[in-house]
């Protein structure tokens, strides 16, 4: 029987970030927040109200923000930069590469509005390449939590980790189903529901979709194991290997291009350690477009229906 999860009420992951920042503002005096003119979108107004001296409004100048964040670490601060995922990565890749990653600076790059569920703003703002960009940087930790509670927990956890981190979250209100007090361990996958026929490994918004798919599969007599991989790098290879050795096939699910994403990381790991039939739920090397999040998830094959279909396909390849 599948483990059941209850939606405690739809909420956005970016508000999880904001709630995490509020708490860090009260508990960790070294935490400082930077923002490139998107305070409302990043939900950090409470942090600012309570700690005005620890907030740096940079203006629309993301490159400068990354450099300032790197400089702030030298004085012992723990900077959390905030802007959209597109402007947190591709726009400032070289600044992150040299001033943060190569320099080994303790900067937390916090990126909202990631992926296609940003919706109506369209492809200019819907980055589907950011996980790949960031995971390729040596030493960069890449985290993509699945709901409000987990995003808040991740925000708190990365403050205690020494080193550069990319924290990716989103805009839409989605199911909030992980336990409110669940400890967040960087690099540790979470078993959501045990199964025997197929492994579904998902990250971000696709975790809830995977649970819905697993329920539908159960009704068809298929036992799916669902794993929540919030940390894409370092990858919890052990958890994935343990599962696929039992099930013999895997579907990976993410709101990102299949090139450079979670699925690619898992495929690379499995190819050398335990070759396994795999299907990818991801965008297929394409840009997004305007539309509602639900319409876009449907059109680009990222919802529970697409996961269900991929499972049925991968089962034939065992």
């Amino acid at each position, binding site marked *: 029987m599948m483990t059941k999860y209850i939606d405690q009420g739809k909420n956005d992951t970016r508000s999880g970030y904001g709630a995490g920042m509020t708490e860090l503002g009260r508990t960790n005096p070294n935490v400082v927040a930077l923002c490139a003119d998107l305070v409302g979108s990043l939900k950090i107004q409470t942090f600012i109200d309570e700690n005005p001296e620890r907030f740096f409004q940079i203006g629309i*100048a993301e490159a*400068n923000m990354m450099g*300032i964040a790197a*400089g702030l670490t*030298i*004085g012992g601060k723990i900077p959390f930069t905030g802007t959209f995922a597109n402007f947190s990565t591709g726009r400032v890749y070289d600044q992150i590469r040299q001033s943060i990653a190569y320099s080994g600076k303790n900067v937390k790059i916090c990126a909202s509005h990631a992926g296609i569920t940003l919706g109506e703003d369209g492809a200019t703002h819907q980055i589907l390449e950011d996980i790949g960009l960031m995971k390729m940087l040596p030493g960069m930790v890449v985290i993509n939590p699945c709901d409000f509670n987990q995003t808040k927990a991740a925000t708190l956890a990365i403050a205690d980790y020494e080193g550069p981190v990319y924290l990716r979250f989103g805009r839409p209100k989605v199911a909030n189903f992980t336990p409110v007090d669940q400890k967040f361990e960087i690099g540790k996958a979470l078993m959501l529901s045990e199964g025997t026929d197929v492994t579904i490994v998902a990250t971000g918004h696709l975790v809830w979709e995977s649970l819905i798919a697993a329920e539908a599969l159960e009704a068809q007599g298929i036992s799916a194991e669902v794993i929540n991989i919030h940390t894409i790098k370092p990858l919890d290879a052990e958890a994935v290997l343990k599962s696929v050795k039992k099930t013999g096939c895997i579907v990976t699910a993410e709101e990102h291009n299949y090139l450079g994403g979670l699925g690619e990381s898992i495929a690379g790991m499995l190819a050398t350690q335990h070759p396994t039939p795999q299907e990818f739920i991801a965008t297929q090397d394409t840009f997004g477009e305007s539309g509602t999040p639900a319409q876009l998830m449907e059109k680009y094959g990222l919802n529970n229906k697409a996961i269900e279909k991929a499972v049925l396909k991968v089962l034939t390849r065992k």
Partner: protein
Amino acid sequence: MPKLEELQDIVVQTRRDILRMVHKVNSGHPGGSLGCTEFLVALYNEVMDLKDGFAMDGKDEDLFFLSNGHISPVFYSVLARRGYFSVDELSTFRLINSRLQGHPTTHEGLPGVRIASGSLGQGMSVAIGAAQAKKLNGDSKLIYSLHGDGELQEGQNWEAIMYASGKKVDNLIATIDLNGQQIDGSTDDVLPMGDIKAKFEAFDWDVLEIKEGNNMEAVIKGMQEAKSRTGKGKPVCVLLHTVMGNGVDFMMYTHAWHGKAPSDEQLENALGQNAETLGDY
């Protein structure tokens, strides 16, 4: 304070270090390094308030950030001669397994370096961040930074320049090495930048010029003046007029030696113009 002659001895020895370092590996950037030798020697031996030893957080001491990282030879020599690491290590410049990478980095843990630089235009933002951290920490010491003039063509600088005045980062002294040269030719030929002083002033910085950037007395006097202008609500910009390749006659007044090492004969000639003072590494 070290006597002027002592500082001059360090300058000449630093020039020898620069020339010998780039000659040995037949690569590196001697032109800009030689042009900034007086400045960096003055900064590290006279102008900055430094503590002994190296701590990354640089608490209660002045900090320096090199944005134009390609002039690493002069930076390494000045750091070594100031005691951050052994001068013998200068012989490992650009070699495999060295802490003295082609461009400066924290990655190998070289004392004295607080940020990687090389990809241009990033250092001013970093310096601003370090300056704001000092303010937050109630640390009254200053942040110094150095930038090439050609480097100002990178747009990130102008984000940083706008920010520093807008946010009153007045514990920062950013120096621009005005040698008028860049890789492909003179800055006027490659991309005319107009009146740099007027541009900084238009961005509401307090700007001062050091007309003789290769004259030790002038550099010290100018930097002391710059220091006196900190803490008054504006970031301070020093326009340092230098001659690329200074101290080696055939390297001066040209961009040709931006990123080129001297031959054996050229090295001998150049060293002949700069007799050993403190002892070669």
